[in-house]
């Protein structure tokens, strides 16, 4: 027993013990990874959370020039029925004036309806501009009260610290007056 406990004479380079340590260490690392995976995965959205990830909206009650806020995946989505002037002012803006250049046509499916996620791209506040009495900022879209970002009638960033336009969620018209977000 004592003899077998004695260290084998180290040869040039690797020994049997080096090999065993490497193999044991690698398997332990794989094992720890395999155990860690379910723990990490459990923090991702559960299946019931994913199941409620679409929202249907009826557009009929929204009068021209007004907007509604709907909740999609726990986030506010602004649906705005734009007036002719609002569409015109959005399209008249040259792309060179935009911080995040994007044409208005790329951001809508039907000219009248603008659908954007209503979270300021700066630090996540909800911009004002949904209610007729709200401050809409110098570009007639939305104005974020937290740090003064102003968006235009296409939801594009025009002024203030926010880096990008209000994102457009994936949505589709399920009929002339119905959309489904998600």
């Amino acid at each position, binding site marked *: *027993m*004592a*003899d*077998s*406990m*004695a260290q084998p004479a180290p040869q040039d380079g690797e020994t049997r013990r080096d090999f065993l340590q490497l193999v044991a260490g690698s398997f332990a690392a794989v094992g720890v990874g395999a155990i860690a*995976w*379910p*723990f990490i*995965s*459990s*923090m*991702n959205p*559960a*299946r*019931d*959370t994913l199941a409620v990830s679409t929202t249907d909206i009826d557009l009929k009650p929204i009068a021209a020039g007004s907007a509604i806020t709907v909740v999609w995946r726990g986030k506010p989505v602004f649906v705005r029925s734009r007036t002719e002037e609002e569409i015109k002012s959005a399209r008249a803006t040259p792309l060179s004036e935009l911080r995040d250049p994007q044409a208005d046509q790329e951001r809508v499916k039907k000219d009248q309806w603008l659908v954007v996620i209503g979270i300021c791209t700066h630090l996540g506040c909800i911009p004002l501009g949904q209610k007729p009495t709200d401050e809409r900022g110098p570009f007639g879209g939305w104005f974020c009260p937290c740090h003064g970002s102003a968006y235009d009638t296409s939801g594009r960033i025009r002024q203030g610290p926010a880096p990008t336009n209000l994102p457009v969620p994936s949505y589709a018209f399920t009929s002339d007056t119905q959309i489904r977000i998600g």
Partner: protein
Amino acid sequence: MATGLHKSDFQNPVIRWVDARLPVFTMMQKEYGTFPTPRNFNYFWNFGALAMVNLVIMIATGIFLAMNYTAHTGMAFDSVERIMRDVNYGWLLRYAHANGASMFFIVVYIHIFRGLYYGSYKAPRELLWMIGVVIFLLMMATAFMGYVLPWGQMSFWGATVITNLFSAFPLVGESIVTWLWGGFSVDNPTLNRFFSLHYLMPFVIFGVVFLHVAALHITGSNNPLGIDPKGPQDTVPFHPYYTAKDSVGLVVYFIVFAVLVFFFPNLLGHADNYIPANPLVTPPHIVPEWYFLPFYAILRAVPDKLGGVLLMFGSIAILFVLPWLDTSPVRSMRFRPLARPFFAVWCLCFLVLLYVGGKPPEEPFVTIARVATAYYFLYFLVILPLLGRLERPLPLPESIARPVLRGGGPLPAGAMSKPMEKA
């Protein structure tokens, strides 16, 4: 070197820099690297390390379960079912946590058995043993409160019955129970405080385990021969010898654990706990979790409310004074020809109590439980104190390195060769 810095033996400059200021590497090397450990451990000495690993598993799975659990009587049951069905790997986390509790008790019962058989509770390890009994009590409280959280029928009625144990105490009993409940029955306040305490207790256990290990590293480990190491020829460094041996045990432990979790996840649970709690209907046959059954059997063996409660608590409290009840100076039962059979009968009684605790309270189980309970206490209170005087122990080996069976005769080749070399 500047004054006030620890003199580190580590060569790696980063480790050395840290170690000189906070000698954690030196401490780990001393306590888990070169720590001299008796060379003759058998696999019973795996179970302390297994219990430690088990505690870590319970805390890890518990923290992630708590992220999805709702401690409210109206939502708790559904939140647990949501964990089982909707949360990614929620079924795995919950089954690992529930069966992890069973594994924890299996491991700890074997760990306690090891201590009882090899006399690990005797001087100088009395305090080490008593801290262990504290850990056992904390584990039982934690397991009990954890079982209440899914808010099934067994959760509710288990909580009702166990908290009502305290009503047995005269005068203050009813007030204590109302205080435990935070109301006039087991209800939402009870569930909330149980969740809070169930989350807290494992960390308390972790702290007490630290004390348990700290005390162990003062006295050093006992060993199957129960004699003290007399020099470096009797010990080996903890690493790699016992890190390797513990790893072997750990692999076997994980196999058993995995078989339970993946093939028989509900074997040790009760189907009734998949029925939401109903305060108006008690299930026809209610029993606690299997690991409480021996003590539950003692409770029911006594035909008196207060007597049963006292005897049940006494069956664990008696372990605190065991180091002074056992008067024999010989630790290991290998050298105690009389104590060994008496202890075997005690173990049998413990298993019998575990069995009858899960049976309905009717004959013949009541009588069996009474006989086994009587022997349980007789062993500690009468047999062990007397044996210390009456028993004639076998001769102890003169050292660990010279096993008693080979004492005197020629040693097998290698068994004793150059023992000083590897010290």
